[in-house]
């Protein structure tokens, strides 16, 4: 077997061992079931309560979509705009960078006051939460563009618009995808956390309710759904990242 094949096999094996431990340890009484119920029980609850889980998804997915557009759309636009000007880079970027140090989750109670208990406060929090890293990733990517390519295009007769369309945009694609990958994952986390802290609907709300009822299998069923969401997002963005990899190589 080839070396990558062996590595792959090792990864799958390790994953199976962990899943097996998740099933076996609670069943053997080595871990209290209230802390970790067996995997099969969590999956069983996911199937048994599928109606309830399914009805929570539209709220959560809707919030994620709205926050995604705000955080990534706004982050990409502002990141590009900031990076395009030397002065803006010097003035604005350090400010945004220091915003990184603020534990944004402390803002959530404020946002609940502003936007209420409904989806708006979740969207606002997740958008703010994901915005900063998105801006920084995009700005870093634009800053790393090779100015010689723009000069070459000019010598070859490219107009300003053609320089943007044929040079700046394709050259910044890898950093855009990297920004979406990071920002999107943070949006999902932000929405779920916000729903857990205070909401009337949604997957995070459901997880918190199961916890209050000491229904650990329900909690873990919700966690599995969240993992499925972030995992799917990660896999899609990774595929996209591979496709634009050639745009980075020189």
């Amino acid at each position: 077997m080839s070396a990558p094949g062996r590595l792959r096999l090792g990864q799958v094996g390790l994953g199976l061992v962990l899943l097996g431990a998740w099933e076996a340890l609670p069943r053997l009484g080595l871990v209290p079931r209230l802390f970790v119920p067996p995997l099969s029980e969590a999956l069983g609850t996911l199937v048994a309560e599928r109606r309830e889980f399914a009805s929570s998804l539209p709220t959560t997915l809707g919030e994620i979509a709205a926050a995604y557009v705000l955080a990534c759309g706004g982050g990409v636009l502002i990141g590009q705009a900031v990076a395009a000007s030397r002065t803006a880079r010097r003035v604005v970027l350090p400010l945004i960078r220091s915003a990184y140090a603020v534990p944004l989750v402390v803002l959530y109670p404020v946002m609940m006051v502003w936007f209420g208990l409904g989806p708006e406060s979740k969207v606002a929090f997740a958008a703010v939460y994901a915005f900063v890293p998105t801006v920084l990733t995009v700005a870093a990517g634009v800053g790393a563009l090779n100015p010689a390519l723009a000069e070459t295009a000019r010598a070859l007769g490219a107009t300003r618009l053609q320089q943007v369309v044929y040079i700046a945009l394709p050259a910044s694609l890898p950093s855009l995808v990297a920004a979406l990958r990071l920002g999107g994952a943070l949006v999902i986390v932000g929405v779920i956390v916000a729903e857990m802290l205070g909401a009337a609907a949604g997957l995070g709300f459901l997880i918190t309710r199961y916890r209050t009822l000491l229904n650990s299998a329900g909690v873990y069923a919700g966690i599995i759904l969240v993992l499925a969401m972030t995992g799917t997002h990660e896999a899609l963005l990774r595929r996209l990242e591979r496709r634009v990899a050639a745009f980075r190589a020189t």
Partner: protein
Amino acid sequence: MIPTVGGAKALLSLRSVSHEFVADGLRVPALEDVDLDVPDGQFLAVVGPSGCGKSTLLSLIAGLRRPSRGTVFCGGEPVTAPMPRKIGMVFQEANLLPWLSAIDNVAFPLKLRGVPARQRREAAARMLALTGLAGFEDRLPHQLSGGMKQRVAIARGLVQDPAVLLMDEPFASLDEQTRMVLGDELLRIWSETRKTVVFVTHSLSEAVYLADRVVVLSARPGRIVDDIEVNLPRPRTFSLTSSEHFGTLRERIWRHIRSGERR
């Protein structure tokens, strides 16, 4: 009015061209009063000590910058902006677009002008064949060696069939063997296409080996301090580089460079 040089029409003319840069509020003169006529079909090399404004001179001819004073003419017309159909350019780095295949990189200037896709591909394929890259059309730049990338850049510079090809130290970042092979290749391409070439280099041997004429610039601000006709026979061969005449020409240029660097 088209200026003439010894009866032949000058394709490129520089009339008292000066250029200054502004750095931190200070005006730094880069070129001073450069007058130059390049007849059609000539292979001209420009040499000078580092920082003498050779590359600036080229970017003025290319229309990438406007001179502070004086005018550049191409075919009698003042150059005020890039004229990609008349003047092709090759840089020190190949500067290929990393997401385009070799053939699409060569065709890129035609795409900017809206030439239909089929004509673009045909023209680009011809140019790749001319630069010895037939069969490499679909490679991406990162799949090509440094010398091959520079061949693609030369093909791109020639694809619009410009009268003038400007080359800014095109072989400077290549190893010596690749540089020598590409030099011979460039002479072959030049003899097949008869472009007017302005070739900036800091290699004296390269200048004498390739060119019909070598213009020597002084240290900053660059002024023309010598204008040497290279009357070596063509086709040029490697054995020529050890001839006495080759050595004499090299030495004459070297004396200017050395006195320039000392100041």
